């Protein structure tokens, strides 16, 4: 009661003019584009480059090749060995890091204004002239295999993997981004070089920058970073929504708990209904506040510590997916409850109060993402990667507020499909046929 009063107060306030994020589109001398938030108050810049492809370009029998290649980029480049490279960056107080994922490899640069060009040189050196020394390959591969072996015993990883294989059969998303202990063990140095060529191409790059840099200087850097890279040369996967036969798969796994992953097709991120779907997910099983699933399955019945769903909308596929764990004895009961909740969702269960609460939460949480130059640069690169319009960040909260209960119910009827649910249960569950 009091909570609602407080919320009403928060929403009813005469709000001061909010800072807007002023994004400039930048075109480089050679015609490449980048987005920039120019902010000269602090003398450094963060630059994020997203290269589309990522693990999706791994050969079918070499899952993890791009991940292994990416982990080796900081292990020495050009004339510098691994320690020499680290010392060179340290003396400039800059940083260069790489990260690989399902759809992309990203490069993150942070450099003081006073030595920006030298740090960018080191970044380009790592990007284009990484040494891939045999010693480094052996060491990094061993670390990766050890970590994959650990996670191969983790029931969450197993559930995720089996779920992916069931609904993305024959598609890149059926493979684990980091590969398996077996696939990574097989990767040769030549295949690492292949992965390098496939993962970095100048025409599948999206660049965001934030901080103390002009559009002109950024344009020059964009051309320097991308200038020596080849054009796209690896086939990208076709888009596909998750499609598995409905039903339950049980994977026997020792232990007192069962991990249950569930879901069906989702919605593409460029769909006109994506925003209502996003809010719907937040209400149903999002992580921000007490969702419907948390209330029904944790709070009312104590069957789990946490249950979450997400719109797993990626560049080449989508799924509406969730996961939780529960005691083996209650697995059957909990699974039936999840089904019931999907019925509730599909049949217009969400109320105006649920929607308002989610709108308050989402519009409040959104600005917190713009947490300094590095976050902003990364958001700018992601927005281009996902084809968002330039002004999106400044209208996004209005778009959230504009969603009506009718929108939500229309999308719920379209998205939620209890009869299509695929469950993967990893454990020794009871009460499941």
């Amino acid at each position, binding site marked *: 009661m009091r909570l609602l009063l407080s919320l009403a107060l928060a929403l009813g306030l005469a709000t001061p003019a909010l800072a807007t994020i002023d994004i400039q589109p930048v075109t480089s001398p050679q015609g490449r584009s980048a987005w920039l938030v120019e902010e000269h108050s602090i003398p450094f810049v963060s630059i994020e480059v997203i290269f589309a492809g990522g693990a999706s370009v791994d050969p079918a029998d070499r899952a993890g090749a791009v991940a292994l290649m990416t982990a080796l980029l900081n292990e020495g480049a050009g004339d510098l060995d691994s320690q020499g490279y680290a010392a060179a960056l340290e003396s400039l107080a800059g940083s260069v890091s790489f990260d690989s994922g399902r759809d992309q490899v990203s490069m993150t640069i942070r450099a003081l204004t006073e030595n920006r060009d030298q740090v960018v040189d080191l970044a380009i050196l790592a990007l284009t002239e990484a040494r891939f020394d045999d010693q480094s390959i052996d060491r990094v591969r061993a670390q990766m295999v050890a970590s994959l072996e650990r996670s191969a015993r983790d029931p969450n990883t197993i559930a995720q993997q089996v779920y992916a294989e069931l609904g993305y059969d024959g598609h890149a998303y059926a493979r684990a981004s980091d590969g398996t202990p077996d696939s990574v063990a097989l990767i040769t140095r030549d295949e690492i070089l292949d992965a390098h060529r496939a993962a970095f191409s100048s025409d599948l790059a999206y660049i965001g920058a934030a901080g103390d840099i002009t559009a002109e200087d950024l344009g020059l850097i964009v051309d320097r970073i991308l200038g020596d890279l080849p054009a796209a040369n690896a086939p990208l996967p076709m888009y596909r929504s998750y499609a598995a036969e409905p039903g339950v798969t049980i994977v026997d796994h020792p232990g007192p708990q069962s991990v249950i992953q569930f879901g069906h097709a989702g919605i593409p991120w460029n769909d006109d209904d994506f925003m209502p779907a996003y809010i719907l997910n937040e209400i149903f099983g999002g992580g921000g506040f007490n969702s419907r699933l948390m209330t029904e399955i944790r709070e009312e019945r104590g069957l789990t510590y946490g249950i979450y769903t997400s719109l797993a909308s990626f560049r080449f596929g989508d799924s509406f997916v969730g996961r939780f764990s529960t005691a083996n004895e209650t697995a059957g009961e909990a699974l039936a409850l999840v089904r019931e909740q999907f019925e509730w969702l599909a049949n217009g269960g969400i109320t105006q109060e649920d929607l308002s609460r989610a709108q308050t939460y989402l519009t409040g949480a959104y*600005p917190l993402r713009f947490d300094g130059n590095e976050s902003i640069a990364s958001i700018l690169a992601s927005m281009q990667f996902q084809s968002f319009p330039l002004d999106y960040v400044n209208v996004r909260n209005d778009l959230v507020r504009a969603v009506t209960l009718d929108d939500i119910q229309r999308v719920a009827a379209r998205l939620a499909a209890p009869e299509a649910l695929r469950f993967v249960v990893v454990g020794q569950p009871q009460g499941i046929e």
Partner: protein
Amino acid sequence: MFNPLRPLAVSLCVLAATLTSASADDPQRFSLDNGMEVVVIEDHRAPVVVHMVWYRVGAADDPAGHSGIAHYLEHLMFKATDTLAEGEFSDTVEANGGSDNAFTSWDYTAYFQRVASDRLDLMMQMEADRMVNLRLDRSDWLPERDVILRERGQTLESSPDRVFGEQMRAALFQNHPYGRPIIGWRHEIAALTGDIATEFYRVHYAPNNAILVVAGDVNADEVLALAQQYYGVIPPVAGIPARARPTEPPQMAERRLIMRDARVGQPYVNRLYLAPNRRPGDQREAAAFQLLAALLGGSSQTSVLERRLTYDEGVSLGAWAGYNGDAIDHGSFSLGIVPVPGVSMQNAEDALDRVLAEFIETGVDADQLDRVRMQLRAEAIYQEDDTQSRARSIGADLTVGLTLQDSEDWIDLLQSITAEEVIDAARALDRRQSVTGWLMKEEA
């Protein structure tokens, strides 16, 4: 030393009118009529605000016999007030997409929220409410005491490293309450009551003992108007005790501890020295210790201890140095080494002392000094990007009695410290004012 309780001499409108003269980036400082200090850091890069209230009271102000009361009260501040239900504060922040937290140190207790900047009003309303309206029923404080005893068990007693650290500190300070754990000694926590907490709250939680720090997408005049509306109406409390803690006697003998525990994975040697703190207008000595710590232990690849002990001699798995000078009464300096299996604790300690002596003998490597200065300068620049950590460091500085000027001077001071000053700081480390501990595996 500045007087934090200096009453406001001019009206708020006059103050607001003068605001434009300050550059938007620099923190701006005001006082409300009731003595509450206000610091605003404008940062309009994103529509986010960090709202913090810092109280000039911490664990070193716990009355003798009631260790842990400052920390206990921090927990109790999330209970019901006259207008908010238990847990409603955090629920409201969360429902608005924000995050909130609180922390207790020896010298301060702070509460903060990070939210969209259009929700600052609500944060102030709730934070001002619990500055005066906390209502501690037995059903609130009794279970919370168990929560803290469990917290002590889970985060401290379950870890031999943490217990060892607590013992080291207790041995370093012979009279000053810095020797007490922030969370409190178990037997004293168990005897805390709602009445003791309420008394502590009544004495220390008041606008004239608090600093408001607001950082982010706000205008100083708007913050000031809101602060006046919510905090300005709270009457000041008379008789807030001066922060005159029991002081250290001259320390005449080094202390040595051996702790054995079956759960120890990696044995190590740790040494803690008393060191100067950062003093208002007088931080040069502290800056030299900060630089000394960075040179000895600031980088796992290139710092003196790691280079000599881990790479050249191969006697350690890791070695460190650290300095903490952000305190009202005393700073501390630490050195440590994790010996490789087969090297005895005594040999490891001797190696550590030998490298320190050699460092004093041979002096500072000029290239390394340049690199360290570069890193420290860059850190200061990168930190400005992180509004929350900037607000936090200013709040901490002010509650330990430093000024905004001291905060600003600190980076330049670090840059200006000479190699000779670093060596002088190293020479000043006095074994008679130290405790050396060996944490070892229990023998079978």
